[in-house]
């Protein structure tokens, strides 16, 4: 793919992946840091899980402000399953390792800038 003007690369390093079950679903958002917010998600990747560290690359993201919301889809159903209390039962993570109060963090807490040129890295620790 040709390098676009005003676009940067994003490298996401996922740490603390519990096991190699199924996949990691990594979403890049522009309005919220909510996995389920399809309207906010501009791109996403599915990456095979492996215990420990997994790296995901996003190339040519238009410069701007983004947040990452991801989860370890260990049972491969593509959903962030929750228990009856409404608490997710899969490993989750957000850019800036932002934390929410019993829900996704506010976009502002998870937001970071992708530059017009070059690469930015986010290290995200999954929490199970």
């Amino acid at each position: 793919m040709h390098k676009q003007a005003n676009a940067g690369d994003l490298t996401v390093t996922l740490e603390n992946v519990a096991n190699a079950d199924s996949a990691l679903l990594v979403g890049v958002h522009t309005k919220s840091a909510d996995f389920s917010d399809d309207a906010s998600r501009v791109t996403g990747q599915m990456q095979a899980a492996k215990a420990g560290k997994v790296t995901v690359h996003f190339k040519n993201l238009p410069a701007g402000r983004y947040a990452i919301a991801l989860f370890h889809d260990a049972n491969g159903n593509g959903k962030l399953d929750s228990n009856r209390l409404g608490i997710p039962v899969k490993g989750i993570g957000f850019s800036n390792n932002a934390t929410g109060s019993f829900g996704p963090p506010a976009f502002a807490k998870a937001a970071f800038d992708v530059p017009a040129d070059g690469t930015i890295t986010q290290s995200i620790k999954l929490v199970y």
Partner: protein
Amino acid sequence: MITRRNLLSGMAAAGLMRGLPYAGPSAVAKAQDDWARLFKDALADNPLLLGWQGVGGAPLESGALDITGAWPKDLSGRFFRNGPAIHERFGQRSRHWFDADGMIQEFRIANGQVRHRGRVIDTPKRRQETAAGKKLFNGFGTHVSGGPAVRGPDALNTANISTLHHGDELMALWEAGSPTLIDADTLAAKGFKQLLPDLKGAPFTAHPKTDPDGTLWAFGYSALPRPILLLYHIGPRGEVKSEAAAKVDYTGLPHDFVVTAKHVVIILPPLVLDRDALQEPGAIFLDAHRWQPELGTRVLIADKNDLSKQRWAQLPPGFFFHHGNAWEEADGTIRLDLCWSKGPDLLFGALRNVMRGDITPAGNGAPHYASVMVPPGRDGVIEMSSDVMEFTKVAPNVVGQRHDHVYGLSAAAADTFPFNRLVKRNLASGATDIYGFGDHIIAEEHVFVPRPDQKAEDDGWLIGTHLDTQKAATNLAVFDAKAISDRPIATAALPYPLPLGFHGIFVADD
């Protein structure tokens, strides 16, 4: 005594009541570092504050305590209490009485002698903070920034409200998460008890009710990420026999409940969590609640034989912590005791203010004995007395049955916080028998312990602690439940003060 500071804090609490936004992050940050100093300065002027000073966390252990009077020889067993105890850690003071890590106090009573042990409840929350060397987690009324992600309520569980002995297990209870198992010999925390196999962190009330046959009834509520109210039927060995959910739009912080012979009754005050407000930087769980009296008070009545068979009734708006007992008339009318307040001022005001050294009036949160009647298929009626009452208890053998007496704490004036009187109330006549401990003493909950050969409902003792702020020491007192105003039969004096706590249980020796 009204000082300018009292007045200001009262006004702040009144503002919250009107649903004004909570203080912004800058105001919170500014106020944050000086609560420890404010408390220390205030304690020098007001010895009553000793009850909220807190302890450092080292185990406490006494020898045989000095006893005044004659401790009843046939009262033998262990009296356990729990309550928030570590009010300051890493130089930071909790912003609400409810927020400190819990501590189990054990009074071992045998052969007319009493010994005390105290152990901090080392929850996962506390262990993580110990390892980090700083506070990490938000409390009920305390904001802590920069902590790790929280997955479910047990990450915040301080196990600091009450204790339960059931199915041969000793537990420390919080109310928004799992029970914490306690080793009955060492008093060490052994981790959470998972109540439901399919639901980690299922919330469990601090006030489960035991039927005379050993069946345990309980509920749990969770406000986040969505409001949930679960009802539990637990067998005598601790096994969950059935459970059901109630459909709720809000949970309203229900702290206690009652059972009749046939029904479970859970009462929700109109204190509604604004979940959006919690997303603001520096948000505090308590302050994200809005008092909405227009909703009234909601009463859930569920069938003990099938907890999914439920109905709702209404009561006027009010706030309450503790109930007493409930029973049913032949036509199905439910009658129950409630410590009723007109509003939640105590929760937002005095119980918070005391942590920075302000003893402020109970305001609209002054609790009064009230009797509630809910006729079958209809809304309820409440009759509030003029008598201050809280920390209500009844004899264990009348739980769910018609009862004649309720025991509790009281104060000289309706607006007074804390309590320094022990009260026995005769429900038929409204007559009260009162023992006043004195102005320099703060009384804590007293538990009814039946005599081994109990015949009459009040054939037993009331056992409980009080803090003597002149002697800077906690005492354990035992009263004859038939004659409270006669003064304690016996008192055991600790050589040290204990942090004021919440709830106790008596576990008789086998």
